[in-house]
């Protein structure tokens, strides 16, 4: 039994990506700290370059081993699914930390803030203007990505490309709207704990939308090059799951961070 299981499973060849990725993370974080004390961005930029190289190489490698070498058998795919589920779960907890920070400070506001939430002097954003539009954009992208998924499953190549393109465009639109909101907001990151929690939470969320759009862009290139079949397209499903979780995180932000009064 054990022999059969090993014969079916694929062991990856040694790859430098875990090391380069870890080193990139180290250089970026320590580089960020260095940039704040010594006014030099060299270390952080080096880390960023290494991160981009790692992203490029590791995704190229996994596409080679799956699509071109045929190593992604059903048990291997299952492992990849487990991996993605675990990763997304960890991201959910990452965001829960920031929501917890917001609620910690807003549910029992200190006297220094005026004893109220939002703090005295903060002009909040109207949730029914741009935030509502942003929610609609992300929800629409959820519909278009589902449309793309079904098109892939039914072997409809052109429809899949169209829906996937539309999904990416909606992601870009969200990012553009959010950047505009950041510029037009009457409060800044330096405006006490309200500003800090707001911009850190929405900032990380925006970064995740950009990551999701990038992931989908790769999927679009792959779909155009016939990598996906109607029953094997895990890369696409991984991108869709990641983006769906991003969307849910924004919906939670919408109901908590953007409202005029803490619940």
């Amino acid at each position, binding site marked *: 039994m054990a022999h059969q299981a090993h014969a079916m499973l694929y062991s990856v060849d040694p790859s430098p990506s875990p090391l380069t990725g870890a080193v990139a993370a180290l250089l970026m974080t320590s580089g960020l700290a260095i940039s704040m004390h010594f006014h030099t961005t060299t270390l952080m930029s080096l880390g960023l370059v290494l991160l981009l190289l790692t992203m490029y190489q590791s995704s190229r490698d996994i596409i080679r081993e799956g699509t071109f070498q045929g190593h992604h058998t059903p048990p291997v795919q299952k492992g990849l699914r487990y991996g993605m589920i675990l990763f997304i779960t960890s991201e959910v907890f990452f965001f829960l930390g920031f929501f917890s920070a917001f609620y910690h400070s807003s549910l029992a506001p200190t006297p220094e803030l005026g004893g109220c939430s939002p703090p005295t002097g903060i002009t909040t954003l109207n949730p029914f203007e741009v935030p509502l539009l942003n929610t609609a954009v992300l929800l629409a992208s959820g519909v278009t990505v589902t449309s793309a998924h079904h098109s892939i499953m039914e072997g409809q190549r052109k429809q899949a490309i169209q829906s996937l393109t539309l999904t990416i465009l909606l992601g870009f639109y969200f990012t553009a709207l959010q950047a505009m909101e950041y510029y037009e907001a009457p409060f800044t990151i*330096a405006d006490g704990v309200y500003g800090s929690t707001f911009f850190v939470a929405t900032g990380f969320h925006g970064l995740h939308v950009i990551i999701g759009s990038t992931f989908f862009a790769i999927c679009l290139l792959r779909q155009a090059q016939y990598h996906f079949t109607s029953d094997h397209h895990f890369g696409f499903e991984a991108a869709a799951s990641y983006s769906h979780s991003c969307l849910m995180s924004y919906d939670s932000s919408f109901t908590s961070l953007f409202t005029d009064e803490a619940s």
Partner: protein
Amino acid sequence: MAAFGRFSQMLLRSSLTQTRRQLSAAAGHGGDSAKTWKILSFVVALPGVAVCMLNTFLKEQEHSHDAPPEFVPYTHLRIRTKRFPWGDGNKTLFHNSHVNALPDGYEGHD
């Protein structure tokens, strides 16, 4: 959170037949789901975005004549414990002089 659990279950068990079975319940026709979702995209999702765009545009027009809020030098806002590592060290990354006051007040009384 329940939705998340359900979603990750679906992702795990997702083989073609199972997905079709699960989705035929939602779509009504097993092989027609792509068409259904395409219709949803163009009839519900994108018009929904268009409506929200119109709403935002109209609301922005209403507010465009409002003056920025009066400046009160609260100590819990506009915190400058340390200079920012760019420019003159006093402006945030997305500083907008029309709506963001500096610790001493609005610049140039815009």
